[in-house]
C-alpha cells in the first residue's frame, strides 16, 4: 500500500515521516517533491574499482546552472532530509525531469526503513541538460511495510550531502574461494 499525499502530511505532523524542510504545497497526490541541493560529485577515476575508494571532486552548482553533457554521470543530493521508521520510502524522478532525458537514479529506488538523511541522486543525462540548484527534480513516495521492523544502521546513515559509493567496505570474503 502506498500513502496518499494527505496521509504523508498527517504522518509528518505525527513525527512518523521525516521531511525537513517540509513545504506543504510540495505534497502531491501520492508523493512529496524533492529539490536539488547545490553540491554535485564527479568521480575522477577512468575505471571504477569497487574494491578501492574512488577519488572524486565536489562542485557547487552556480545560480545560473550547470550543464550535464549527454552521457554524463554525477551524484547530486536532495535539499531535504528524509526518512521514516514506519514506512519504506521510494525515490522517483519527476515526470518533467524524465522528459528531459535525465535519470535521478540508475537502479536503486528503494530506501531502507530507518535510514535518515539527505538522499543521493544518481544523475545520468541521456540528453544535455542544465541543472539549477533548488529545482524540483525528484519525488519520494512512502509504502506500508509488512512484518517486524528492524531499522537501518548502514554506512550511508545521516548523509548531509551527496555520498559517493562505499562498496570497498563490502568485500569481506570471496564466495568462490570457499
Amino acid at each position, binding site marked *: 500500500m502506498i500513502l496518499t499525499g494527505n496521509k504523508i502530511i498527517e504522518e509528518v505532523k505525527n513525527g512518523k515521516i521525516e521531511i525537513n524542510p517540509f513545504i506543504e504545497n510540495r505534497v502531491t497526490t501520492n508523493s512529496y517533491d524533492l529539490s536539488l541541493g547545490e553540491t554535485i560529485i564527479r568521480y575522477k577515476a577512468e575505471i571504477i574499482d569497487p574494491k578501492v575508494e574512488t577519488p572524486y571532486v565536489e562542485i557547487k552548482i552556480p545560480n545560473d546552472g550547470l550543464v550535464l553533457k549527454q552521457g554524463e554521470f554525477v551524484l547530486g543530493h536532495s535539499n531535504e532530509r528524509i526518512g521514516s521508521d514506519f514506512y519504506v520510502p521510494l525515490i522517483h524522478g519527476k515526470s518533467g525531469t524524465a522528459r528531459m532525458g535525465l535519470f535521478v537514479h540508475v537502479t536503486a529506488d528503494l530506501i531502507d*526503513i530507518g535510514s535518515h538523511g539527505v538522499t543521493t541522486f544518481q544523475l545520468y543525462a541521456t540528453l544535455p541538460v542544465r541543472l539549477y540548484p533548488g529545482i524540483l527534480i525528484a519525488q519520494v513516495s512512502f509504502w506500508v511495510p509488512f*512484518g517486524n521492523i*528492524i531499522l537501518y544502521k548502514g554506512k550511508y546513515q545521516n548523509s548531509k550531502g551527496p555520498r559517493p559509493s562505499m562498496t570497498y567496505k563490502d568485500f569481506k570474503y570471496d564466495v568462490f574461494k570457499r
Partner: protein
Amino acid sequence: MILTGSKINDEVKRGNITIKPFSTEQVNPNSYNYRLGPVLKVFERFDGYKSFFEEIEMPREGYILEAKKMYLATTYEVIGSQKYAMSLIGRSSLGRYGLFLQCSANLGHTSSTHKWTLEMVATIPIKLYPGMIIGQVSFWKNYGLFKKYCGRYGFLNHPQESLTPGDQKNYDINRKQNY
C-alpha cells in the same frame, strides 16, 4: 505492502520465499542483497533482427565493463516466491557508481524461481568481481488471486538474452495451452 527484513527471514524458513544460498548477513531492513553470478554475456553484434552475445566466465581478479555497452549476467542465488511478487534492483552502492542493473524491468512475477538475468549498463567503466554483492530484491504482498507464471524466462538459470519477436507467435500458442 513490502516485506521487512525480518519477515523475509521468516518466509525463507517457512518455504514461502526461496533464496539459495541464503545468509542472514545479507538481509536488509526491507530487502535482501544478492550476489553476482560468474557467467557474463557480452554484446557482440546486431544482425538487424536480433543481438548476439559472447559468453565468458568472469575471472576472479575482476572484469571491466566498458561504458555504454550492454551486458547480461545472473544472480548467484536462485530467487523466487510462490507467495509474493518481487522487485529486483541494484544496490545503492552500485547505483552511486552509475551502474544500471536492470534496464527498467524490475518486476518479478509470483511463482517464477530461478537465477535472475541482470541487464547491466555502466555509465562509467567499472570492474566487477564474480560473487560480489551487487543488488537487492524486495518482496511485495499480492492483492487478489494470481495465475501461475507461465512466461519464457522464469525458470532459466543462465543469462538469457531476449527471445526474438519471431518467437512471439509460438510463445502465445504455448501459453494458451499452459493456462
